[in-house]
C-alpha cells in the first residue's frame, strides 16, 4: 500500500495545478546561536510540495519541525539555502488555538480579514462563510473560553483560512485534543483542504495521524533535522484512522522513527 517515494515514477500533476511547486525548499539549513555555540536545527533540507498536496512531516523531538514551518511562513530566515513559495499566501496554525480572548469567534476570524485589507462590507459575508466552513454556524458570537478545545481549533482554522492562504502550515494542530475530537477533525481538515485545493504542510508526532492524512509522509531525523525518508500514500478511497492500510504505514513509520531515536541512544 505505501511505497517509498523514490520507488515511484514522478508524481502525476493534479488537474489545474500549476507547474511550479507550491513550496520549494532547497538545501535549507538553520542554525541558532546558543551560549557561544551554534545549534544546527535543520541540515540541508530539500522538499518539494505540489499545489494541493497534503504533506505530513513527522519526527522525534529536536527534528526542527517548528523551525521548518517558521521558515516557510517567513517568520524566520534560513542560515543557508532557499525557501520559495512563489506568490502564494501562507497561513499558520499552532497546537494552541492562539485566539484573541477579548474577541468573539467571529471577530477573531474577521480580524484576519481586516489585517489584509478586506473592506468591511464583504468581511461580514466572508466571516459567515468561513464559520460555516468549519461547521460553527451559530457560535460566531461566543468567546473562545466558552467553546471546547476542538471548537476553538476550528475557529483557528477558519482564521487561517481567512488569511486567504494557498498554503496552510499546521504545527501539531490537533495534538492537544482528545482522540475522538481529533478523529472528527481529521475528516474536517481533509474535506476543507480538498474543497479549497489547499496545499497543506502538517507537522505531527503522531504516526497514525500522519498516515491517516498525508498524500506523502516525510520523516525527519533529529539534531540536526534532515529528511531521512519519504513515503507516498496513494489515495485509493476514503481513509480511516483504524483502517489496516493506515495501521500498516503507521507501524512502518514507528519502526523508522525508533531506528532514528536509537541512533541517539548509542
Amino acid at each position: 500500500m505505501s511505497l517509498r517515494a523514490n520507488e515511484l515514477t514522478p508524481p502525476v500533476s493534479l488537474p489545474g495545478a500549476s507547474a511550479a511547486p507550491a513550496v520549494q525548499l532547497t538545501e535549507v539549513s538553520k542554525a541558532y546561536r546558543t551560549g557561544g555555540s551554534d545549534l544546527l536545527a535543520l541540515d540541508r533540507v530539500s522538499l518539494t510540495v505540489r499545489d494541493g498536496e497534503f504533506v505530513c512531516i513527522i519526527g522525534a523531538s529536536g527534528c526542527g519541525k517548528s523551525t521548518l514551518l517558521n521558515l516557510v511562513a517567513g517568520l524566520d530566515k534560513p542560515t543557508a539555502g532557499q525557501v520559495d513559495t512563489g506568490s502564494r499566501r501562507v497561513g499558520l496554525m499552532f497546537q494552541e488555538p492562539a485566539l484573541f480572548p477579548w474577541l468573539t469567534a467571529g471577530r477573531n476570524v474577521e480580524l484576519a480579514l481586516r489585517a489584509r485589507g478586506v473592506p468591511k462590507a464583504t468581511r461580514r459575508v466572508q466571516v459567515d462563510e468561513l464559520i460555516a466552513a468549519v461547521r460553527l454556524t451559530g457560535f460566531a458570537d461566543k468567546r473562545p473560553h466558552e467553546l471546547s478545545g476542538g471548537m476553538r481549533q476550528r475557529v483557528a482554522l477558519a482564521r487561517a483560512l481567512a488569511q486567504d492562504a494557498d498554503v496552510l502550515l499546521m504545527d501539531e494542530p490537533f495534538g492537544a485534543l482528545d482522540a475522538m475530537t481529533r478523529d472528527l477533525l481529521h475528516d474536517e481538515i481533509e474535506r476543507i483542504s480538498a474543497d479549497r485545493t489547499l496545499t497543506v504542510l502538517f507537522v505531527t508526532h503522531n504516526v497514525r495521524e500522519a498516515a491517516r492524512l498525508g498524500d506523502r509522509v516525510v520523516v525527519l531525523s533529529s539534531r540536526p533535522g534532515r529528511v531521512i525518508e519519504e513515503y507516498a500514500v496513494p489515495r485509493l478511497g476514503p481513509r480511516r484512522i483504524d483502517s489496516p492500510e493506515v495501521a500498516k504505514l503507521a507501524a512502518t513509520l514507528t519502526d523508522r522513527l525508533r531506528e532514528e531515536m536509537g541512533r541517539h541512544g548509542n
Partner: protein
Amino acid sequence: MATDQALYGLDKLDLGPAQDRGRSRLARRAWAATWPKLLALVLVFAIWEIVHLTGWKPYVFKGPGEVLPELWHLLANGQIPAAVGVTMERAVIGYLVALLVGSVIGLFVARIPPLRAAIGSIITGLQTMPSIAWYPLAIILFTQGEAAIVFVMIMGAAPSIANGIITGVDYTPPLLLRAGRTMGLRGVNLYRYLVIPASLPAFVAGLKQGWAFAWRSLMAGELVVSIVGPPGLGVLLNSDQSQSDFAGVTAVIIVILIIGVVVDMLFSKADTTLRRRRGLLDPSATS
C-alpha cells in the same frame, strides 16, 4: 453526512447544558455579595457605640448617635455636597492629567528598551514615595494653590498607571504575537488590534492603583495647601479640627471613605467584567 452529525453532537456535549442566567439567580448573587458588607457595617457601629458607652474621653469622643445626625445636618445644609463637588472636580482634573502623563510614559518605556533601562526602576521607586513628602517641593514650585495639588497627584498616580501599561505590554502572550504577525499585523496595527487589548486588564489594575494614590495625594493636599476659594473636603476637616468638632471631623471622614469605596467598586467592576469576558475568572467565584 455522518461526520457533521457527530461533530454537532460532540459540540453540544462539550458545551454542556445552557446556564441559568435568570433574574432570581442574579438577585441571589447580589444579596450574597451585600449581606456580609451590611453585617460588617452594623458591627463597626456597635463597637463604636460600646466604646462611647464606656465613657472613654467623655467630652471629646462622640457616639454614632451624635455623629450621624451631624452628618445628616452637613448633608442637608449643603456644606458637604458643595465640598464633595469642589474635591471631586480636583480629583477628576488631577486624575485625568495623571492618566495622560502615565499612559504616554508607560507606552514609551514599554516600547523603547534603553528608556526602560534608564527609568524603569525609577518609576517603581516613585510608587514607594509617600505623597505628603512631595508637598514642600510642590509648594515651592507652584506656590500655594491647586497646581501644587495636581502636581503631587501626578507624582502619585502616574507611576502606577505607567507600570500597568508596561506590565500589560510585557505580558502580551508571545503565542498571540506570533499569531498576529502571521495574520499580517504589523506596527501600529499590531498595537491597535493586539498589544493594547491584550494589556487592558493590567492597565485597569494600574488605573485602580493610580486612583488610590491620586485620592490620597488630593486629601493630603487639601489639608496642607491653602487654597483661595470654596472649601473642599480636606479644608472642611481642617476647620472642624481647629474647632475640636469630633462629630464634624468624623462625618467628613465617613464621606471620604464612602467616596473611596464607591470608586474602588467601579474599578473592580470594570476589572471583573474584563476578566470574565476573557475567561480569566473562575465562573464559580462570586464577586
